[in-house]
C-alpha cells in the first residue's frame, strides 16, 4: 500500500540496496533518481488527450486502440514501455449507456506515462474504498451527475495492467481540428471522474 512507502525501515532498506548496487557498479551513482525523473518528465495528460482526439477523428484507430492499446499507441508516437518493462494498457470507452471510472483499491496504480503523476485524491483511502462501492455518489461529489440509465463500470487496477478512459466526444465539436479536440480533454475525464 502506498502509505507503507513512508516507513523509515523500508526507506533505509531501499537506500542501502541502492548504495550497494552503486558500489558494485550495477548502476551509476544517481541513476535511479535520474531514471525516475525522466519517466515522470515524459508523462502528461497531454499524451492521453492526444490519444483520445485521434480516436475521435479516426474510427480505425479507435477500434485498434480498444482492441490492443499497446499496439495502437505507436501510431500517435507513444508507448507504455518507458518504465522497467512495458505495461499493458486497457482503454475503456464511455458511451451513451455506459460510463467507466478507474481506481486502484490496493495501492495507487495509474498510467503515469499517459496521464502524468496521479492527483492526491486518487491515492486517498477515501476515494479508493468508496468509488468501488458507491461510484455514483463519489462522481456526484466531483460534480459529475450521470443519468440513472447510464451504467457505471468501475475498473480496479489490482494487477499489472494500466487503464485509461476514452471519454465521449462533446456535442458540437464537428468542426474542430484534432489539436483543438485534444485541448478539450481533461485529466479527470481520462480517469472517468469528469465528463467533457
Amino acid at each position, binding site marked *: 500500500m502506498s502509505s507503507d512507502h513512508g516507513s523509515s525501515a523500508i526507506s533505509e532498506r531501499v537506500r542501502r540496496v541502492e548504495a550497494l548496487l552503486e558500489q558494485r557498479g550495477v548502476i551509476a551513482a544517481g541513476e535511479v533518481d535520474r531514471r525516475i525523473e525522466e519517466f515522470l518528465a515524459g508523462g502528461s495528460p497531454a499524451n492521453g488527450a492526444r490519444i483520445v482526439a485521434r480516436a475521435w477523428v479516426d474510427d480505425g484507430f479507435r477500434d485498434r486502440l480498444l482492441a490492443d492499446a499497446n499496439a495502437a499507441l505507436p501510431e500517435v508516437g507513444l508507448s507504455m514501455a518507458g518504465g522497467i518493462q512495458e505495461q*499493458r494498457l*486497457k482503454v475503456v470507452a464511455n458511451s451513451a449507456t455506459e460510463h467507466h471510472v478507474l481506481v486502484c*483499491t*490496493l495501492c495507487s496504480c495509474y498510467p503515469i506515462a499517459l496521464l502524468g503523476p496521479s492527483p492526491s485524491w486518487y491515492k486517498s483511502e477515501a476515494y479508493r474504498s468508496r468509488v*468501488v*462501492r*458507491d*461510484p*455514483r455518489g463519489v462522481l456526484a461529489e466531483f460534480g459529475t451527475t450521470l443519468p440513472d440509465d447510464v*451504467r*457505471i*463500470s*468501475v*475498473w*480496479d*487496477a*489490482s*494487477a*499489472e*495492467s494500466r487503464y485509461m478512459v476514452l471519454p465521449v466526444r462533446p456535442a458540437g465539436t464537428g468542426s474542430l481540428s484534432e489539436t483543438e479536440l485534444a485541448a478539450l480533454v481533461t485529466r479527470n475525464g481520462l480517469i472517468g471522474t469528469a465528463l467533457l
Partner: protein
Amino acid sequence: MADRFVPGDRVRTRSVDPAGHTRLPRYARGALGTVVERAGVHPLADDRARGLPGAAEPVWHVRFEATELFGTGDHAVTVEVWDSYLEAVS
C-alpha cells in the same frame, strides 16, 4: 498449456485470507463473476512478494455485479485477478 477460461465463463474467486501480500482485494473474495478477457501472463504477485520467483500464469479481467460484491448498487466492478485466485463455476 491451454487457458482454463475463455471470455464469458462464470468464475468464483477463492475465499481466502492469506497471511502475506495478495492482490485479490478483500471485497472481491468468494465472489461470482464473469471473465471479460485475458490481461497478460505474469508471475503470481503473492509469490513475488515472498521472494519466490513465481510461475507465470494468466491474469484475467473479471467483471462482478455490485450486488454480488456489496449486496447493493446497480454498477459493475472489473477486477484484475490471477488465475490462481479463480475457481471454475459449472
